[in-house]
């Protein structure tokens, strides 16, 4: 509610204690029961929104930001990554397998555990995702194309990037960068990187891959 003064006090008027107190109580009540009508548009800064911990989930409807399972600091000397979820050091092991998605792992061996970015959202949240890294193709005997893709909860995001190298005697290397915006529903989220070689016989590997997710929950 808005507070609108009802009693008009004029100079020289006879003081009415009850009226005066009613006005005070009405004003006080307006402040105690703050609602959207008492808040000026654009008056709340994003940094004042509360974290949706257990004790204040009741108030999480419009003002929460994403709870995160902090994966790794995005910057070695900075503060905690308040807004950015980050996973560094993802590998796609060297493989000659073609036409099959090879998902990111924690090391250069195919037997190494999967390495992905996992977090939980409590409200439907727009996310910006990106992944970048380097592709190596040793001893290419023919033109080689590698398709890279971000997977969200096991499904390809639908925005692949294909990079390629020509035939070369040594190890060819090139860089890839994926960028994707998506709205994720509440729940557990798993973001992975995967790459797939097309039909050429050469092997490939992806190294120094990083995956990041930036949520824009309110």
């Amino acid at each position, binding site marked *: 509610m808005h507070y609108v003064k009802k009693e008009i006090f004029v100079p020289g008027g006879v003081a009415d204690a009850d009226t005066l107190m009613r006005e005070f109580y009405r004003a006080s009540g307006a*402040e105690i029961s703050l609602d959207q009508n008492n808040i000026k548009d654009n008056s709340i800064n994003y940094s004042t929104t509360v974290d949706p911990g257990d004790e204040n989930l009741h108030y999480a409807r419009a003002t929460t930001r994403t709870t995160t399972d902090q994966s790794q600091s*995005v910057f070695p000397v900075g503060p905690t*990554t308040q*807004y950015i979820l980050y996973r560094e050091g993802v590998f796609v092991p060297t493989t000659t397998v073609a036409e099959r998605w090879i998902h990111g792992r924690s090391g250069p061996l195919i037997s190494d555990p999967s390495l992905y970015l996992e977090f939980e959202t409590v409200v439907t949240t727009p996310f910006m995702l990106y992944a970048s890294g380097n592709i190596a193709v040793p001893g290419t005997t023919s033109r080689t194309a590698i398709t890279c893709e971000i997977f969200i909860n096991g499904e390809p995001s639908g925005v692949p990037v294909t990079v390629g190298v020509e035939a070369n005697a*040594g190890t060819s290397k090139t860089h890839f960068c994926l960028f994707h915006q998506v709205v994720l529903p509440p729940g557990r989220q798993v973001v992975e990187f995967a790459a797939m070689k097309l039909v050429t016989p050469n092997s490939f590997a992806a190294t120094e891959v990083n995956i990041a997710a930036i949520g824009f929950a*309110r």
Partner: protein
Amino acid sequence: MSVAHKIKPGDAVSAAEVTANFSSLTTINQVGRLQIEAGSIDTRHISSTPDDWKEITVLTNPGTYPGAAGVVVLIGGGPPVPVHNTGMVLIVVKAQYKGLPGGLTDCRLRLSVGATNVRTAAIALGPSEDLAFSTVYAFTAFAATHAISLDILGTAAPNFQIIDPEIHVYAVRG
């Protein structure tokens, strides 16, 4: 927050008490989250949200820069970029890579924030291969300014060029 004094009929009203009552109503800046009705805050109340990426600056260095054994600074040395401390910073790097006649190149294109190398792109392509290079990097600012630079680390014959490198810096006021 409450009305400080109850003024009853017949009271000899003290101006100080009336003033105190008014003063007690000015404590609206003491409102805590428990006093805000659930769901009452709408996005229209929020002045700045993290999807409001604002382009802070574009660092460019137009030209053609041949690779070399060692470090070649492409962008750097200028004043640090003002950002919103504790807010997100998004860096988008763009450049053209051109292979020159010769064997495989060996180019490491490095993005640094301050003295820390945060991303390295390894490019080793043949003489006929060109690349429209781009990469992104995001971090949480921890100072009012951050120096952002781009360089090449070449370890072999300089048979490549980097053309028209650009760094676009976006930020969010948290």
